[in-house]
């Protein structure tokens, strides 16, 4: 209640301030609006309008190759998606399953590597920072094709390396990273880790913003590395972790390029790579069911929105900003 009152009084104050604006301030405000107009136009043309249009498309049987034959079918596409099409929930399950494996891995690796690269005892710190960031510069498609060779069951160096330990990783009964449904998510996560450089960079910037006095004081009080990590690093890094979490969530739910390049959307092996976005793309563009594709896109939007809202709601319990927890 008090928060609402506070917000109300603040908006009244802003309005009063606007009214009090002199000619020069108003001109400045108009110039500001003028300068952001291209962005607003871009937003309207490339985001808002397509979103509204796609909501409209979802009510039509609309084939891409014959748009003139489109016909209004009401909520049929929605009914098919939610109740009749087993692929909808299968592909959603695949996307969420992969998210559950890859997102924590990406977050943990990104943070741990950043901590490592921030360690003052690390020799050649700048060199390692460059090396860890360098893969991000490799075009994604090229990286995927390289990984496909690296994970090749017979000739890939991962299996050859494992074989050195005595485990029979190559051959017909070896580790088939990209062909075995129980291994494929781990293989895809390896490939995703290749592009972890940006997350490391953001984490590194966050780590460097933590005042060293806090560690010094903790050290004087006898806190070890683990305790410092738990009591200082993680709380101070929580806004950065939250940022990476939300960004990673959205990106992982839109996971498309890796499975598309490796399987051309067949879902191989055994439907385990039928990610939701792959299924959406196939419906909209391969099968040309643009109306149904638009419906699927909306489902993903709603699911992403709900999970993001839950994350934001949870943030008040674990994300610490400069002035304390976010209220």
């Amino acid at each position, binding site marked *: 209640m008090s928060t609402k009152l506070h917000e109300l009084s603040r908006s009244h104050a802003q309005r009063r301030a606007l009214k009090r604006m002199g000619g020069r301030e108003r001109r400045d405000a108009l110039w500001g609006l003028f300068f952001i107009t291209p962005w607003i136009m871009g937003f309207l043309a490339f985001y808002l309008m397509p979103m509204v249009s796609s909501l409209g498309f979802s009510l039509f*049987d609309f*084939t*891409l*190759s*014959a748009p003139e*034959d489109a016909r209004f079918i009401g909520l049929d596409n929605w009914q*098919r998606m939610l109740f*009749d*099409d*087993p692929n909808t929930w299968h592909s959603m399950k695949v996307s969420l399953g992969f998210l559950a494996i890859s997102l924590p891995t990406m977050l943990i690796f990104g943070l741990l590597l950043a901590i490592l690269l921030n360690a003052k005892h690390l020799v050649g710190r700048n060199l390692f920072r460059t090396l860890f960031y360098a893969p991000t510069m490799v075009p994604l498609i090229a990286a995927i094709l390289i990984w496909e060779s690296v994970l090749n069951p*017979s*000739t890939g160096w991962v299996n050859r390396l494992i074989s050195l330990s005595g485990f029979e990783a190559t*051959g*017909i*009964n070896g580790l*088939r990273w990209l*062909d075995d449904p129980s291994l494929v998510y781990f293989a895809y996560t390896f490939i995703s880790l290749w592009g972890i450089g940006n997350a490391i960079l953001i984490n590194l910037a966050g780590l460097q913003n933590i005042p060293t006095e806090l560690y010094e004081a903790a050290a004087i009080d006898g806190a070890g590395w683990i305790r410092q990590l738990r009591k200082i690093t993680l709380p101070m890094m929580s806004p950065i972790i939250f940022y990476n979490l939300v960004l990673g969530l959205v990106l992982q739910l839109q996971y498309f390029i890796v499975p598309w390049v490796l399987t*051309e959307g*067949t*879902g*191989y*092996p*055994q*439907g385990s790579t039928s990610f939701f976005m792959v299924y959406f793309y*196939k*419906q909209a*563009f*391969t*099968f*040309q*069911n*643009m109306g*149904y594709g638009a419906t699927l896109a909306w489902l993903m939007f709603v699911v992403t929105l709900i999970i993001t809202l839950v994350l934001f709601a949870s943030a008040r319990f674990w994300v610490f900003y400069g002035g304390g927890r976010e209220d």
Partner: protein
Amino acid sequence: MRHKIRMTRFVVLSLLLVLTSFGTGSVQDVSARDRVQIRWFVGLGTGTEAEQIAAQEAVVSDFNASQDEIELILEVIPFDQAYDVLATQIAADNAPDIVGPMGIQGRADFPGVWMDLDPLIQETNYDLSDFDPALLDFYYLEGEGQLGIPFAVFPSFILYNKDLFDEGDIPYLPSNYNEPYIDWEGNERPWDMSTLREVAMVLTVDANGNDATMAAFDPDNILQFGFGNWAGPHNDLRARDTIFGAGSLVDGEGNAVIPPHWVEAEQWFHQAMWEDFFYPNLIYSQSELLGAGDTNWFGTGNLGMWHTHMWYMGWGTANLDADWEIAPMPSHNGVVTANLHADTFGIMKSTDNPEAAFTVLTYLLGEGANDLTQVYGGMPARISLQDGYFERFIEVQQAAYPDVEWAEKNWHLVTEGLSYPDVPNHQEGLPRSAESRARYARYAEEFASDPDFDVEAELEKLRLDLQAIYDTAD
């Protein structure tokens, strides 16, 4: 003074050169502008191999030189990307004018985009008497019209690796239809699916030299397989099962059906993969042994018998270091079925220049057909071009692949295969064709991955899923 004269000459000459070049440029520009541009999209069928591209470029060049009204532009897209590229071009309102060569399936995958050629055929009095009416009907679709004119047909047959037969002391396959097979014990057997199975098992050899009929055979270390189909283990069950008889996954009322002989075929193939081991399962099909995911198993030299089509001849065996021969299709329950592929060119409804596109189409079916069918490997659909086809084909292949004795192969079996076409054709359109195919491709992938796959139950599941897809079609 002399220097001045030289300078003046130089300047005048330069000016003349510049003016001439402007003049020529203007003429060329006007000429190019005046020509109607027709884009020819290749990729939905054959036509994407290097030598085929060269031949197509020559046809384009000849066509462009033959007149000054139309400029033909060739666009070749690799087969595995062509579908998506064309779909994107259509969606972006940037569709080509002519598409082909493409099979029945290629046409069916893009319903509603093809122009009815009938008005143009009437308008230009195009002579259709040189085409088999039955083949013309192949491209007539109720409600949409004449969507193509037959260009080439590609019968299917069995290719076998004679060297592998020799290594195993296995007698060669029959050389004629209705001829029995004489086995390694001198017994006469009908050339049918049962005999093929037995020959294939003897041809399948493991790392220890045991064949698939022996108790000591090691299925985890197979070095040579007995039989395969060009459609692979996880691609097209309709193409695979037609060897047991023609059929369709949709009946006349639009219901999803699995023909009973295809249920039998699927059980036969599953046993072939997981119990008899002569047909490569998914893991083997992607191994280095069979080309690391390439579908040309026969070309690796590690496959004994191969069910393929005429379009395979030439490039398919280019790297095969073994002698090979053509054999007839085996029968099943006394009936022989030889899958038939038939290619055409389609004009897209969206073309701005239907008359010009039709002119190009008639050129490809007429003057260009001889050269194109040679490189595509197809037998010309035009009756007048069929005479002497194999002599010309052998000549072309002999020049391209001189290590093979092309003239000594059983080419008569190719022509005779036309007497056993699959009706209905295995490439006939299904409701929501691309989506339906994606569904049964997923079935086939699981089939080839799982030794415990319950064929009958999964086929019933497939039928129900196909019905759900069909129900969403108009």
